[in-house]
């Protein structure tokens, strides 16, 4: 619950959301969409915002991604973990392209809202990092 609340806080206030630069704009389904930068997540522009929170399938998926099981075996071959999470969250993957043609995996949900697949993974990563004890810094060997 705490995590969900934290996420809602992170996702909720409009001032926390900002339209990213050109790198956050992707052409998806032949339409250019500039995603909102919410912390580490990039949320599609079509997600309704009301009563202090974003309310759409994509936003809910961001919250749910934290709890979706993802076994090591599933990452075999270097699959994009965000893409796998998208599938598990009943999203469909589309290829978005930024201004320079760089591609991004976009997770599109039934209500038409979307989030970058990497965002889903980052939610998990950050939740895991927050839950884990502090780790020793990487030893700097090469200066």
């Amino acid at each position, binding site marked *: 619950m705490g995590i969900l609340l934290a996420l809602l806080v992170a996702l909720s206030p409009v001032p926390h959301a900002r339209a990213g630069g050109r790198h956050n704009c992707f052409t998806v389904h032949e339409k250019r969409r500039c995603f909102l930068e919410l912390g580490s997540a990039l949320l599609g522009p079509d997600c309704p915002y009301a009563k202090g929170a974003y309310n759409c399938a994509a936003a809910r998926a961001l919250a749910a991604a934290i709890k979706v099981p993802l076994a090591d075996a599933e990452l075999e071959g270097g699959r994009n973990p965000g893409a796998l999470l998208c599938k598990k969250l009943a999203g469909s993957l589309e290829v978005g392209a930024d201004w320079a043609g760089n591609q991004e*995996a976009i997770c599109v949900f039934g209500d038409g809202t979307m989030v970058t697949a990497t965002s889903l993974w980052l939610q998990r990563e950050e939740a895991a990092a927050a839950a884990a004890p502090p780790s020793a810094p990487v030893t700097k060997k090469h200066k």
Partner: protein
Amino acid sequence: MRRWGQACWILSTALAVASFPGFAAAEGAPAAGGAPDDCEGYRLDWVTGGPFNPEPLATSSKDYAVCSGEPDKEACKARHKGDGKQHDYVIVHDQGVNGTCTFQALAGVLNYNKSMKGEKPTVSPEYLASQDCDNFLPGHGIHDIPRALSSYNKSGSCTREDLACVANGGELSETLESAYFTSAITSSTLALQGFGTKFDPNEKAKSQICTTVLKDGLSDDKSLALARDLAAATDKISEEGKGIDRLTDNLSKQMAIQKNTTAGISGDTAKSRAAEYSRCTADAEFFKQICKDKIEKPPADKVANKPKVPADACKTKCPWDGIAAECSKTFKDKAPGKVTEDFLASQARKSKDAETCIMGSSDMGEMRQQLLNNQIADMEKTGKPVILDVNDMSRLVGKSQKRSDAGHAVVLIGRQRINGECGYWVRNSWGTQCPSKTNPDVHCDPDRPGNVWISSAKFESDAGVKRIFDPGL
């Protein structure tokens, strides 16, 4: 036992030898000057723009066999028989939806290297053109911002498709003015997308910029009627501060990059100086031309109110003359435009300092350290990419401490010292979004989405490099 068949597909984009002054300005991160820096300047600059394979599911994979890195090429080819795309480079396994791009990326690198040697590419431009990702073929001196917005021709007018030229105050020829926007935006967009020399990466980058900027501007305007009149349309866009602002922003950025380039020349190592030379002179010449056009050929009335960049930058004296002078001073025995590959190669030789920045630790498992280091050195000298099969990409770029054994391939594109620490630039295939904003061992290049810097310590600790592909270039 990991097999090549389990390795992820490889994202490779185009390759160019250049230094990287823009990052310092953008991030405020890299150290400049100071002690002998084995990483300084040693960085391959892969062109921005290019496909990332989202790799949704391995089940959709297709394999592209490129087998020169295999001891037994015939066996390799046999293993991949039937995919119709067997080539003698390196094994590439594609797990995603745009496998042709993977293949093409490597083919592009191959073509690039061959073309640099004056050899005929083995993959035809026609084939590459038939693919989705034909916009990242490599070339020298590629920047993410096009250095030439356009085809200002000798008479000072713009070529038909070059709306960027017009947007910057260039003169539109009478013929074009009457004809270009007689169709709907959609067809205009198609025309825009078609211009540029397809296999000239600079032109292609230019095309992308122009297409994006202008198409967006026109789309934002949402007025098909306006688009029937170019002058009115560009006026409208300008008034609304959309497309033109973006273009202006791009130009401003170009200039900022250029300034940084100039400032960094004296402190660079031989390699980066060589790269800078090429870049500096080329950009200086371009900007000089822009300035001259602005000064000597004032825009026609119809476009007189268009944005003042770069006109504002050269009100009285073209600042880029200084750049050219600096270039000449630094490389006084090399006239602009006379840089040869031999010269670049000679300047690109590593100094002894660079030897201290090599891969190697007890935690690197089966990695063939010497080979990898040799390949890194080779990469820096020739532009040959290093392709690695790594063990744990999510650990490498992420925060998770859990070690996975998820064979993956990344392209090592260079090394650079940031905040005093040596690190390696890689390109993964997961997309453009930065995998970490807080991890000090990971940086992302804001101007080249998808380029990720990983500290050498973390790389050696967590990458688990298992194999090194020889791209066979």
